[in-house]
């Protein structure tokens, strides 16, 4: 094999006179070079012709069944498809872990932000009043309306939190259980007067938030 092409070893290849390493090298080259495939094909025609002039022997009948059995094994996937499948299979767990990680990261950030708000200064508080059987819940919120933390105790499932205003209902998010407590931290820039806990379309509890000076503010939560 001179240079990149296989033309000068076409006859050796067809006769089986190359060693295994050289043969594999030619095989690899033939996959990409139509010119050399033609040259090797011509040499193969000569070798096959010589072989066809040799004595004939009848194959045993069981050989066909043996070949059928070999062909029953799954055919290889075409290379591009195999690469695509490998990428998809490789990426799926990574994508899943990334999405789980992102959700956990967002939860941790929200809880950290809520804890910082609670520790930073006095805040207001209101309990949710049950309208239907529902777990006890409360809302803590900043005096300037810049944040809200909704906490549902003994939570069994996620409940939506909605802002009730002007006869309308705007869903703000979901308090999803983590252990026996569900929390939702809402950084907002405006004051909300009434919040509702929703189980599907049903309002199960409502909280009325007070903004007047008469409303008692709770002191900041101190650690230690």
């Amino acid at each position, binding site marked *: 094999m001179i240079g990149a092409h296989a033309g*000068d*070893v*076409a*006859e*050796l290849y*067809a*006769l*089986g*006179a*190359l*060693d*295994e390493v050289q*043969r594999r090298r030619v095989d690899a080259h*033939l*996959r990409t070079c*139509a010119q050399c*495939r*033609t040259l*090797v*094909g*011509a*040499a*193969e*025609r*000569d*070798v*096959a*012709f*010589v*072989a*066809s*002039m*040799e*004595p*004939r*022997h*009848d*194959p*045993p009948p*069981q*050989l*066909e069944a*043996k*070949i*059928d059995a*070999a*062909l029953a*094994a799954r*055919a*290889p*996937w*075409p*290379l591009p498809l195999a690469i695509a499948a490998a990428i998809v299979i490789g990426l799926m767990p990574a994508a899943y872990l990334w999405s789980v990680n992102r959700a956990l990261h967002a939860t941790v950030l929200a809880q950290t932000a809520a804890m910082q708000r609670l520790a930073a200064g006095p805040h207001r508080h209101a309990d949710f009043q049950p309208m239907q059987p529902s777990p006890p819940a409360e809302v803590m919120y900043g005096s300037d309306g810049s944040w809200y933390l909704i906490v549902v105790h003994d939570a069994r499932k996620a409940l939506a939190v909605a802002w009730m205003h002007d006869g309308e209902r705007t869903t703000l998010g979901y308090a999803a259980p983590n252990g026996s407590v569900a929390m939702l931290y809402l950084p907002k820039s405006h004051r909300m007067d009434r919040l509702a806990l929703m189980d599907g379309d049903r309002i199960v509890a409502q909280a009325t938030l007070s903004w007047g000076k008469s409303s008692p503010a709770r002191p900041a939560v101190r650690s230690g």
Partner: protein
Amino acid sequence: MGFAAHERWAFGEAYRRNAALLYSAAYNVLGNADEANDCVADAFARLWRSPHPYSADRGNLRSFLVVCVRNEALSRRRRQTRRSRAEERLAGLTPPEAQTPQLADPIERDRVRRALFALSEDQRAAIELAYYEGKTHTEIAAELHEPLGTIKSRIKLGLRKLASVLESLRPQEAGPQ
């Protein structure tokens, strides 16, 4: 084309159409029915596992299959020879010359032998060692004490001439196409 598209039915059909030629190609190298049987099946299994073993610009499918089966047979024979030599060395015996299988039907075989005598002596020696004894070109160069390039050239010209002479001796019913 079904075979180039790697369709299972086409592989089965390719075997059925060429069964006797392929089996004979293996048998004439190995000289043993069981070995020839395994050899043809292994050659097809290997092709089936390869993603793109054949394309139409390679030429005749039958020729391609014959060469694949012959090469599988030659590889088996080389492995057998190596194994035998190792066993003989272990047994402390002097290794005999590599054995060429005893093949039946010398009259038919004579047709190729006769054609070989139309080649020059140098070409004939190189082709016989490659075709009948299954030696690699480096082994042939060492055995004939000639450079690799010379052996390549003798095999190239010798193979073309052998096919041409056989074509002129070809009986009406035979042929690879």
